[in-house]
């Protein structure tokens, strides 16, 4: 899930200068040498007690270091407010948005130097366990640290991205099930029915293009476009079948039907090619969005915010994502949903466990402040009531969101590579140049295969 504020993602405080980047690996070495010389190096693997399913570092007192993205800073602040006695060191980083891998980069360096790991980390990505477990960075949470009664309160399947061979290595912050956002006021004014199937959706998109040119029924210009449309269409884009194997076939009918739909609407202009977080989208499409398929967090991140489309109260409604006629299962996609990781190297285990349990559970942050749909079911219930009470949405978004939470298609999973980054680099430029998505599907297939292979995956079709 990307940060809510689009300007944040432009800034990369971690980008090394051109000349230094050349020796990035070497620089790490110097740091390693320097720290080893200072006697700060320590290996947690030898002589540490095995408890709660991992070897724990010697516990010390001191500040708890928490890494969060800018959107999750209020979460850490809310914790601080509720726990004034805990010393908290809040560090803001990019949250790995759009697959920047900055967390992995840093942990890699910390692993070399033998120190420096944060105690708790928030990540916007769902694939952190694909590297963090083998890197020894994350602690298993269901082996004694967090009681099963707490874990079972998370929405069904939501801890799937955290689970590796039966062990839970992270807690889910929010769910990001895709739904159909639409402007109920405009739909009513123009006498349109909310589409329930994709063919209806396409027909309406074509109609809008001719009757109300300039208005949009969706956007296909984001890196997570495949996670909204292709995932919901049950396209074989990222079917992880084992720890290092994936099945990919994006030229099969489930993919081509959605690609043709997008192409048809892009052609007539009712499907945008801009990212919903781009300055151009915010500037040109204000008041022009009739429908927008997208994740649960679009409400707070795009419609009801001054940094987005800033749609007034009483217009936006939520409907279920359309379905393909004849499909045996109801399915939708998913765009992100952050995770909290607990470092296996932490010297403040009790505080860290307390923090991670608090921040994902029932509290001031998850109940009302968070822009995303809480993964923790009791928190989600309060959050939905709060969303409803604000009176921003038309109708009852809670029922739709709750239902969609259980409909995310399980045939699409996260590998070590970023599907968002691969789509952006492969399809993005072609889309701008006027190529159709259908014509680029073979290139997408090749790109996924290439990236998955270089991450050590076996790719089958």
């Amino acid at each position: 899930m990307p940060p809510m504020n689009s300007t944040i993602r432009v800034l990369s405080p971690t980008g090394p200068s051109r000349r230094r980047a050349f020796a990035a690996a070497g620089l790490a070495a110097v740091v390693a040498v320097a720290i080893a010389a200072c006697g700060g190096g320590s290996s947690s693997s030898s002589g540490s007690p095995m408890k709660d399913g991992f070897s724990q570092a010697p516990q010390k007192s001191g500040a708890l270091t928490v890494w969060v993205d800018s959107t999750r800073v209020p979460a850490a602040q809310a914790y601080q407010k509720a726990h004034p006695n805990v010393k908290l060191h809040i560090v803001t980083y990019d949250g790995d948005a759009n697959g920047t891998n900055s967390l992995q980069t840093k942990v890699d360096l910390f692993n070399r130097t033998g120190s420096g790991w944060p105690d708790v980390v928030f990540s916007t990505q769902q694939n952190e366990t694909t590297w963090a477990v083998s890197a020894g960075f994350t602690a298993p949470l269901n082996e004694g640290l967090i009681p099963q009664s707490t874990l079972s309160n998370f929405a069904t399947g939501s801890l799937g991205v955290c689970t590796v061979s039966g062990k839970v290595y992270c807690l889910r912050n929010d769910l990001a099930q895709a739904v159909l956002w639409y402007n109920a006021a405009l739909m009513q004014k123009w006498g349109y029915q909310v589409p329930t199937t994709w063919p209806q959706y396409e027909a309406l998109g074509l109609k809008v293009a001719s009757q109300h040119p300039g208005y949009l029924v969706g956007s296909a210009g984001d890196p997570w476009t495949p996670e909204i449309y292709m995932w919901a269409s049950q396209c074989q884009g990222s079917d992880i079948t084992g720890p290092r194997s994936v099945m990919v076939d994006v030229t099969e009918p489930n993919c081509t039907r959605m690609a043709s739909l997008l192409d048809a609407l892009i052609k007539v202009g009712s499907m945008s090619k801009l990212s919903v977080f781009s300055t151009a989208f915010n500037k040109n499409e204000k008041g022009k969005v009739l429908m927008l398929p997208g994740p649960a967090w679009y409400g707070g991140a795009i419609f009801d915010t001054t940094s987005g489309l800033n749609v007034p109260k009483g217009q936006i409604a939520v409907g279920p994502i359309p379905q393909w006629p004849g499909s045996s299962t109801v399915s939708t996609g998913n765009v992100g949903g952050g995770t909290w990781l607990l470092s296996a190297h932490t010297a403040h285990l009790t505080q860290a466990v307390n923090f991670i349990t608090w921040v994902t559970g029932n509290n001031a942050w998850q109940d009302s402040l968070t822009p995303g749909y809480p993964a923790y079911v009791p928190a989600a219930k309060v959050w939905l009531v709060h969303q409803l009470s604000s009176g921003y949405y038309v109708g009852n978004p809670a029922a739709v969101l709750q239902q969609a939470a259980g409909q995310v298609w399980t045939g699409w999973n996260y590998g070590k590579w970023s599907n968002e980054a691969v789509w952006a680099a492969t399809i993005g430029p072609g889309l701008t140049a006027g190529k159709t998505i259908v014509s680029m599907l073979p290139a997408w297939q090749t790109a996924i295969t290439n990236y998955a292979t270089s991450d050590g995956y076996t790719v089958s079709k």
Partner: protein
Amino acid sequence: MRKSPEAGPAGARSLSTFRPVSAGHLFVAGYVVLLAAFGVVPTAYGIYFAFSNAGNTFAGLSNFIGAYRDFRYLPAVEHVALYELIWLVTLVVFVTGLAIVLQQLPLRRVSRLTRFLYYIPGSLAGAASVMVWLFMLDPTVSPAAPLLRLLGYGTFGQVIEPGHLAILFVMIAFWTGAGGWIVVMFGALNNIPLDIIDAARIDGAGGWGIARRVQIPMLRKWIVYMVILAFAGGTQLFVEPQLISEASLGVAGRDFSLTQLSYDFAFQNNNVNYASAISVELLVLCVVVAALFVTRSRFFDAS
């Protein structure tokens, strides 16, 4: 036995051969320490990584072969080669040209002001100046939006389409880096003795003639020096594509250059050895190119 008047007693003589630590040594010492810590040691460590595998045993050339076989390698080489070509030609032609024009400007004040203007962008830190360009290139917010629209680019995506990238990066690099070189060249031009220029003038040379037959030949070493450093800087292209990549949400600029690929190998594919192999290749390339230019231009010969 003849005693020279300067020679002191035996004790004094041994002191003089000992050579006490001078201020010069102190000045250099700081640099030597940093050079060792951030230049020599990392390079040695990088070379070690390039020839060993994940288990720290000798791996021969397998890292080089593995990196070469990666699907991103050859495109990155092509990108960097194209970038270098455009970058070096632009730099040599414009920097030399602008410096000569500056030097021949009849009005001192205009020359001084222009020099200052050329230099300003260079005083911004590398990444910050690229940030400026992110706004310049987005037609929605750019002050140059009318120009971009005139060229047919209505969105950021159209401006940064893959075919444009090499030229865009040259523009950014030129804007940030060329000013400093223009000032250096200007200084070098001022070092050309006036009597040579006067002699050329008496022989009937105009501005163009002086530039072509006197100034440019006498700037040769400076140009070679600039090309060597600019080439090395060019192979290390990183900030521009990386920032464009983040600003475009990964649409353009990902895995564009070899240093980016090296970075990705190290931190994304968890393969420091392939990453080091690429950096060693770049090191060898830069040393070879520098050696070629130095020997061909008789760089170290006294003029």
